[in-house]
């Protein structure tokens, strides 16, 4: 099986409902990250955040193809995946603040967002066990007789780690219902992908495992949506895993506080900002007559309110009492 590069001219504009839903998710992620940066700069936020701005189309396009009971395992740059899978902005923002109303009760923070209600199996502080966790969730679903699909998001950095090989090989061998989504943003922290591997086409590696691989423009949400739809469909039909490589870019540094400019040229950053996935969808939809400026403006207003509310909620949420410090080290009940 050969990897192939898709061409976006084959993509037709979906119905307004789909377009606006994708737009809403992308704007939700964008505004969430902007608000998180704002709060971070006040000094109220513990730890370090890795923001996802610039890559929103990947999470939005892939998760639009998933059901609530499907599974997602994510990365250190996981806010977008969590929100796209259904973690609320309130619960995610409170978690970033280490507050008790966070989706992990404030114990996980940015890199350990968990939510069983929507199948979110965690952002992760390690690169990239999410590949293994997603494959395991897919195995679990299969053994349970369900038809859930699991998705693993990971970066170009993750693709050079041993878990990529072990996890994809085993998932392929067992034909598990999992989709491996590589967000190739060209840098593993500061390491350019071209200096980290000889074969920079991640999708082509799928051939080594006997599964389909496809490289897409990760800043074109419609292309991501289409390819994710095929992959999720294959998985759900029991036809096994797919590897999707999404070419994208993070606008800012590796983490908040890293300007991201010592190892990346300003021109390169500017050229990717010009390929803003949010603006692109809006422009194409208006051009195509699927939605109007007012439709998008209404979503912008709605999401701004959602984030204002989320930030207020999160900042008002208390921190955990130390009296519960040893709770949940072990699951106490024995079945």
């Amino acid at each position, binding site marked *: 099986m050969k990897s192939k590069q898709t061409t976006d001219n084959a993509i037709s504009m979906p119905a307004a409902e789909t377009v606006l839903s994708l737009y809403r998710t992308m704007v939700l992620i964008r505004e969430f990250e902007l608000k998180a940066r704002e709060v971070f700069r006040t000094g109220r936020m513990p730890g370090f955040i890795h923001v996802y701005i610039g890559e929103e189309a990947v999470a939005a396009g892939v998760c639009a193809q998933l059901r609530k009971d499907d599974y997602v395992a994510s990365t250190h740059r996981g806010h977008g995946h969590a929100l796209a899978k259904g973690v609320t902005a309130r619960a995610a923002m409170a978690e970033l603040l280490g507050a008790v109303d966070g989706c992990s009760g404030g114990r996980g923070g940015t890199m350990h967002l968990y939510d069983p209600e929507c199948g979110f199996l965690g952002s992760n502080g390690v690169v990239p066990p999410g590949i293994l966790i997603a494959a395991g*969730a897919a195995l679990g679903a299969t053994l349970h007789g369900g038809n859930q699909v699991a998705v693993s998001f990971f970066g170009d950095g993750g693709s050079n780690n041993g878990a990529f090989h072990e996890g994809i090989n085993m998932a392929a061998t067992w034909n598990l219902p999992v989709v491996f989504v590589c967000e190739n943003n060209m840098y593993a922290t500061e390491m350019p992908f071209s200096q980290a591997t000889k074969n920079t086409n991640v999708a082509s590696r799928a051939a080594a495992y006997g599964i389909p691989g496809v490289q897409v423009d990760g800043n074109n949400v419609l292309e991501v949506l289409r390819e994710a739809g095929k992959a999720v469909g294959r998985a759900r039909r029991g036809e096994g895993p797919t590897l999707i490589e999404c070419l994208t870019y993070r606008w800012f540094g590796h983490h908040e506080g890293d300007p991201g400019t010592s190892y990346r040229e300003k021109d390169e950053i500017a050229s990717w900002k010009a390929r803003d996935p949010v603006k692109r969808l809006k422009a194409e939809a208006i051009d195509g007559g699927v939605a109007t400026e007012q439709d998008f403006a209404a979503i912008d207003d709605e999401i701004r309110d959602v984030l204002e509310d989320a930030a207020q909620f999160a900042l008002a949420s208390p921190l955990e009492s130390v009296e519960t410090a040893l709770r949940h080290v072990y699951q106490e009940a024995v079945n």
Partner: protein
Amino acid sequence: MQTANTTLSGKVQEGSRVITYAEAGVEAVREEMRRNPAIFYMGQGVGVRGGNFQQSRGLHKEFGDARVRDTPIAERAQTGLGVGAALTGRHPIVDIVFLDFTLEALGEIVQQASTIHYISNGRFKVPLLIRAAGGGIRSTGPHHSHTFWSFFAHIPGLKVAVPSTPYDVKGLMKTALRDENPVIFIEHKALYNSKGPVPEEEYLIPFGKAAIARPGKDVTLVALGKMVAIAQQAAALLEARNISVEIIDPRTIAPLDKATILQSVAKTGRLAIVDEAYASCGMAAEIAAIAVAEGFDDLDAPVLRICTLPAPHTFSPTVDAYLVPSAEKIAADVAAMFGRH
């Protein structure tokens, strides 16, 4: 407290069904897999072959390809997939076969499995049994002889069982498979063919409950896994010198039954810990610290650690046998606690 009398040479008590340590494990897994459809088993060579040590013999025949799965040589994936499956409500048994190779999966065990219940604030649980055989047998050498139980017991969120008899294998394995935490279940490869009485009826051995493997009054010997049988041999040698040894087998070191150890020390006034693992920062050091911190007034002599000497395991049969505590070495060191040489 029930103790099963078994030895490395296979001598057993009369009057009870006798099976091997390996068979006891298979029986426990089989019973629990019948009871709980969420349990499945994966590992290298655990299917049709029945496991390198016959520790999964017959399971594939009864439960089939879906629930008893052979894996590639990919311990990290085995364990990571186990974590993922556990998050969806399955209860995986991940058989790493050789304890040494848990190192290939250490990040998945320590960074993922042990932490998720806590850092998700109890929203997810990780019912996962990691099974592996530790310790040396017949010059298994540096890559197949390790004794990492202390590593795992160091980590909050993990439980660690190290059974020494067929009776304990069955009872502890059944408990492990009803516990919804990650459990590291370490059998000793030299014990798989040892025999002992194992009731056919159902029983469970709670974690954190030590066995008094031999009652005595002069000195407490804490020993684990294969070292319980070696300690029994040492105790027989010491008995001939009028030293009465009480052997405590913790059976699980996370949780650790401090109370039984401290009660024994209160009675005997002397404590020696025998460990096939290394002394430095290990189980023996932990138990010694507990005895000093919580039983200081009961101690009539310094606490003694009798552990494998700090060198890699070697193929050399003479040197490897020298590195690991022997009955003679234990007996000599314990006799010295009484000023006898």
